[in-house]
């Protein structure tokens, strides 16, 4: 069984890696400058030309891209090649107003599959494995990403998608799945269901799990490992870059190796934009070195984390990122879905409620809960419980339509949600996902 999927890349020396990155970066900046008018304008405004970028050391000269740019440029403004060269799109789970749509050429999908294949091999996968993909398939990148990686490795791939948990376990037993790929909260749920069905980890054949798309704790990792009898590996990604597989964990379980031959990582000060030295805590920024369809340069992820080149016992030399420790914006990840408080505010206003609200996120039995308290106005009041509960339900449905997740809505009296002096406290996250 191979230890690495692409050993020459995964164990390359820093000099070799820099040479690959330098060559790709120079080409990529030229290509983006020629093909992407939106980014060309940003470069022109900054007075940077492709000739100024001769190596990775010049990266800091390039302008940043943010989520706001992606919205402004929606849908085709950041397209890096002719649409006729693109073969697929994926999309984020929805943001205020417009979604982010990312385009993929066949080459983009091939490199994405390679990234996921590296993750599966790092988790001990080979062509003798049966890989059950229980991430959602569709616009969400999870299902297709791991599916592609699994096939590249040569695993027998079970494209289950998420849901129907008893059937997941049935397949797990009948087809002797050895690797499970899904969100950590779904893995935890599968573990609980297994127990409810009167089964133990000995009744299934799983050895490893690759879990990502939402924050999870070490404690949760141990719970999942115990309930399913596996070793659990973290995986990181974002639709803007490609999807899962931008970085992946090895058996050391001390952070994720970034596939830096494709995605060049930097850590910046989120306030000043200044590049910080290795080991500093700051905002993670990615530059796609190969992507053709959606080639984002210096994209600010808003994830706060630390990078390290410390020698890893697995033998990989790819730079490692710590589990993200938070966000530099107000985005929440609830049950794997990206949620901005402003989205909830939009629904409240549409439904005729005041913009005074409080979002409380917690985790019960490894599943995220979302509670939204909203101030009732005199016009909306009714003397019957029937009508008030109907209003709560209608609001919960409207929020579900926007976010794709079910909230619990609580109507509260006017002026009971604290009016803040200065910054409004709109969100209380009780999950303690970060140390």
């Amino acid at each position, binding site marked *: 069984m191979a230890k690495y999927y692409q050993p020459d890349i995964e164990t390359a020396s820093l000099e070799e890696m820099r040479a690959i990155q330098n060559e790709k970066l120079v080409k990529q900046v030229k290509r983006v400058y020629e093909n992407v008018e939106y980014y060309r304008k940003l470069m022109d405004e900054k007075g940077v030309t492709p000739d100024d970028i001769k190596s990775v050391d010049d990266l800091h000269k390039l302008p940043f891209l943010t989520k706001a740019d992606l919205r402004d440029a929606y849908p085709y403004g950041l397209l890096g090649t002719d649409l006729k060269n693109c073969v697929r799109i994926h999309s984020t789970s929805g943001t205020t107003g417009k979604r982010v749509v990312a385009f993929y050429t066949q080459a983009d999908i091939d490199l994405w599959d390679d990234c996921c294949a590296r993750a599966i091999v790092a988790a001990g996968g080979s062509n003798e494995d049966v890989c059950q993909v229980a991430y959602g398939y569709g616009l969400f990148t999870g299902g297709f990403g791991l599916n592609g990686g699994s096939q590249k490795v040569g695993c027998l791939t079970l494209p289950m998608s998420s849901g129907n948990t008893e059937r997941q376990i049935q397949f797990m037993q009948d087809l002797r799945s050895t690797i499970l790929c899904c969100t950590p909260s779904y893995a935890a749920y599968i573990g609980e269901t297994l127990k409810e069905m009167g089964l133990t980890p000995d009744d299934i054949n799983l050895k490893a799990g690759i879990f990502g798309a939402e924050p999870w704790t070490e404690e949760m990792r141990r719970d999942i490992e115990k309930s399913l009898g596996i070793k659990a590996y973290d995986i990181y990604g974002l639709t803007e870059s490609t999807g899962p597989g931008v970085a992946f964990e090895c058996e050391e379980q001390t952070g994720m190796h970034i596939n830096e031959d494709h995605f060049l990582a930097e850590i910046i000060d989120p306030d000043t934009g200044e590049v910080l030295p290795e080991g500093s805590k700051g905002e993670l920024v990615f530059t796609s070195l190969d992507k053709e369809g959606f080639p984002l340069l210096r994209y600010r992820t808003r994830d706060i984390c630390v990078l390290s080149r410390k020698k890893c016992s697995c033998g990989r030399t790819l730079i490692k990122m710590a589990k993200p420790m938070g966000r530099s914006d107000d985005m929440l990840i609830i049950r794997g879905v990206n949620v901005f408080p402003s989205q909830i505010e939009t629904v409240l206003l549409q439904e005729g409620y005041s913009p005074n609200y409080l979002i409380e996120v917690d985790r019960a039995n490894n599943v995220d809960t979302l509670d939204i308290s909203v101030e*009732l106005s*005199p016009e909306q*009041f009714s003397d019957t419980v029937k009508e008030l*509960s109907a209003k709560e339900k209608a609001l919960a449905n409207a929020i579900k339509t926007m976010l794709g997740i079910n909230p619990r809505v609580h*109507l*509260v*009296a006017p002026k009971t949600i604290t009016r803040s002096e200065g910054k409004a406290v709109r969100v209380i996250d009780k999950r303690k996902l970060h140390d």
Partner: protein
Amino acid sequence: MSVKQISVFVENKKGGLYEVTSVLNNAGIDIRALSIADTTDYGILRLIVSDHEKAFEVLKAEGIIASVTDVLGIEVPDVPGGFSQAIKVLSDADIAVEYAYAFITRHEGAACVIIRVEDNAKAANLLGKAGISLIEADKAFAK
């Protein structure tokens, strides 16, 4: 024909009910009858008071959510089956009772039941025809 009820939104939290009653007390308003419907998050306090207009104004001034609701007050004989007879009239006519609460009046031998239905006029008409007496406005509750 109908009676004015004050309906108040009360959050399920410590002191929530007192906030309402103290506002009424400070304005010298007498509570004649009350009921509370409660859910996990909030309650709806329903009151028959000595002066509903004033009650509504003072609650509103305090930022408390309240409304004035037309309800029916029916007088039923204080004997077994007294209430049942009145409800049968509504039930036979397919009129749903949203809620009801009762209290004893100062009149000897009679109880008063407040009922909330969708169509007050229709219900009042039917009850009247069945010989059930309706309490007229606030004055029925005067001391």
